């Protein structure tokens, strides 16, 4: 590595053919990803897919068995965790219970022996950034789950990391808090401008926070691209289902739906629940099997001619019930064509 490359790669986190084992069992294999300076990458995968292990590997908490991790163009092999400049935020925050909020946030500054007034100033700044000014003297035990995660985030940012590693930062929180904090997180990360890797099993969390997304399964990255790309074109049926598509149709059923949407036939198709809309006109017809009111619409299970039983929606107040015959329109933007399996 020449110094020139280092400047060129400033702030960039790069994984090259990374592999990790746990107790001799391969957990992560052949992962190659690049996060540009200031970018936010979400690694999305079900539990046990190796995503947290990957994150620990980047932080230097687990040894790599293959490949290498480069930060600023510098190979991190042999660099101990505390010299890597990767701040890791744990799923449950891991605040130090014996230190106050301010002492927790000031911790990374203290270990670098920053002068006291700088610590004070920076802590105030960061607590302000996460919306917790005036919490200085509280102990972690007195905070709510959401507040704790905010403090943990402020503490990670206080390390002034070259890369921020977030391990399921929001999954310990309840749904409404999660949605709100995801918004905040996005804002805080873009303000801080830190290169970030976020690991999660919640696609909502990934959508809300990240620019690019890598889907992991069984230790490998099966798809990688911008959040919109991955969402629009999942690489296979399993990925589509994991991303929140309601079902994947194959063969004639796929053909019927694709034709109805005005798309080219010949592949499989992943269908979101809201892709089929009943209660108006449309190219498909079927018989309602079950109906249930949800917050914004009526959720139906419809036996569609040429497709089979499939989920659909109708506007609230359309008074549909089992046995009713309906016509269905197909929204092409809520479908994803997959390569035939």
């Amino acid at each position, binding site marked *: 590595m020449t110094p020139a490359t280092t400047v060129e790669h400033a702030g960039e986190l790069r994984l090259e053919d990374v592999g990790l084992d746990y107790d001799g069992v391969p957990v992560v294999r052949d992962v190659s990803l690049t996060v540009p300076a200031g970018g936010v990458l979400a690694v999305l995968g079900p539990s046990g897919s190796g995503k947290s292990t990957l994150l620990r590997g980047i932080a230097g908490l687990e040894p790599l068995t293959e490949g290498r991790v480069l930060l600023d163009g510098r190979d991190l092999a042999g660099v101990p965790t505390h010299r890597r400049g990767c701040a890791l935020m744990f799923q449950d925050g891991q605040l*130090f219970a014996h230190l106050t909020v301010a002492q927790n946030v000031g911790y*990374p500054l203290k*270990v670098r022996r920053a002068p006291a007034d700088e610590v004070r100033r920076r802590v105030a700044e960061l607590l302000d950034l996460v919306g917790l000014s005036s919490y200085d003297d509280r102990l972690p035990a007195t905070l709510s789950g959401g507040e704790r995660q905010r403090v943990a985030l402020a503490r990670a940012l206080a390390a002034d990391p070259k890369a921020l590693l977030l391990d399921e930062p929001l999954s310990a929180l309840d749904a409404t808090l999660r949605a709100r904090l995801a918004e905040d997180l996005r804002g805080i990360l873009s303000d801080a401008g830190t290169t970030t890797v976020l690991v999660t099993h919640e696609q909502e969390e990934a959508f809300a926070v990240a620019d690019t997304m890598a889907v992991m399964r069984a230790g490998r990255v099966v798809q990688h691209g911008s959040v919109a790309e991955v969402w629009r074109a999942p690489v296979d049926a399993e990925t589509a289902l994991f991303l929140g598509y309601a079902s994947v149709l194959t063969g004639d059923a796929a053909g019927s739906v694709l034709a109805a949407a005005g798309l080219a036939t010949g592949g499989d198709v992943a269908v979101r629940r809201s892709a089929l809309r009943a209660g108006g006109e449309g190219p498909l017809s079927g018989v309602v099997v079950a109906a249930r009111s949800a917050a914004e619409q009526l959720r139906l299970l419809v036996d569609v001619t040429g497709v089979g039983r499939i989920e659909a929606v109708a506007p609230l107040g359309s008074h549909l019930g089992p046995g009713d015959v309906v016509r269905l329109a197909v929204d092409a933007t809520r479908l994803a064509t997959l390569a035939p399996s």
Partner: protein
Amino acid sequence: MRSRAEGARLLTLLGLAALPLVVLGVFFVLPVSGMLARGLWPDGSLDLAGVVEVFGRPRVHRVLWFTLWSAGLGTLLSVLLGLPVAHLLYRRRFPGRGALRAALLVPFVLPTVVVGVAFRRLLATGGPLGGLGLDGSAAAIVAALVFFNVAVVVRAVGSTWESLDPRPAEAAAALGASPRQVLWTVTLPALRPAVVSAASVVFLFCATAFGVVLTLGGLRYSTVETEIYLLTTNLLDLQAAAALALLQLVVVVALLLVTQRLRRTADPAREHRVGHAPQLGRRDLPAVLVSLVPLALVVVPLAGLVVGSVRVEGEWSLAAYRALTRPTAVLPATVQDALVTSLRTAVDATWMSLLLGLLVAAVVTRRSRSRAERRTRALLDGLFMLPLGVSAVMVGFGFLITLDRPPLDLRDSPLLVPIAQALVALPLVVRTLAPALGGIDDRQRQAAASLGAPPWRVALTVDLPVVWRPLLAAAGFAFAVSLGEFGATSFLVREDHPTLPVVIYRLLGRPGDLNAEMALAASVVLAATTAVVMLAVERLRVRSLGAW
């Protein structure tokens, strides 16, 4: 309605506690208070002036001062030497780790008399380390105290260290803290409760050490405990003995209150997961070097003991061991008989302390529903810890003076010695069982009950699977404590049926013939028996001795 339910719970609580309470009352509170009464009310009237006079004596000042500084220094050294060992034995992996853990535990349960013998042999003029001139010195006493108690620190801190959540340390490292900074800012603060509570228990053990001070200190160095013994048996100055015992009682109760408070800060709901210990590596070299000191301190006296037992008049010989089966002039029974007596007594003491300990542990660990209930449990918890620190000599002598007339004329009962030993072992048993029982999520029991299991069935399905290993471990501890108990036993033992530690002490007091070698050989037999029991306990891998 609610208050009646609460009352019922309180009644159940007291019902469970009834048997241990009665036993503690008759065999501990009664003798100890009898002993105190004898000293404080010498002629039927309270004589406080006498007590004040005792505390004015220069010798008493010397005894108090020596007790304090020897116990303080012993505690400090035990902690300083124990921490690196705990780190190596519980946070690193290497071959032979389990054996080393067990070996370090042996001294703790080794009969105090044996330890005294081992150190004497090593340091005596002409002994392997005789050149140091430490025989009969205070340094020898402190070294012996450390020898005993380093194991307590290692186990108590080690088991906490082992199950310490590794993630805060990882978080600190990811925030830029170097290993040394992680140790100081995260690991040590997390260990502090364990260290402080281990230190206070060690201080308690050091300050009430009896056998080891008696054999090593002679008349020159005396602690409060040995002084009580000397005052009672040699000088028959019961008033002074009672005054000192009272002082000891007050200090011990204060210390127990402190330890109990410290123990409460530990979060019982915290998940105990044993992390993945890395291999021993080059970075551990400093810890390994420091650990060699306590290791040598433990190994050398024991090795000296074994060597001494097979050297007779400068020759290698098993004569001392052969002599163990033969009757001698100085003993009422052969050493072999004494071993059998010791084992029999230990079996009785073990079942007694297990029965009592199980009841006490069940009482103190159940979740309280009301403030009164919680207070009652805390009080009982503290009460049953009392034998931990109250002079065994006082208990023993108290037995003699209070249980000698109807309806409690137990002087010749073969059960007297096991009962006294069971009480001495009781705190250890409770402290082994209580963490296991307390660690059970109460919702498990509630779930079982809601599925239709009656209380006995709940205990069988929820408690027993968790508690059987600690129960076996506690049995091992009780057995070992009973084998080695000397303080109370020396008063109570029946003349024609001495236990092994008593026989060893007597052999030591009569130099000549083969007596010294026989004492060493008998010590080896006793140590080996105890070691075998402790190795079995270690195999059970219980978080024992971990939650004082």
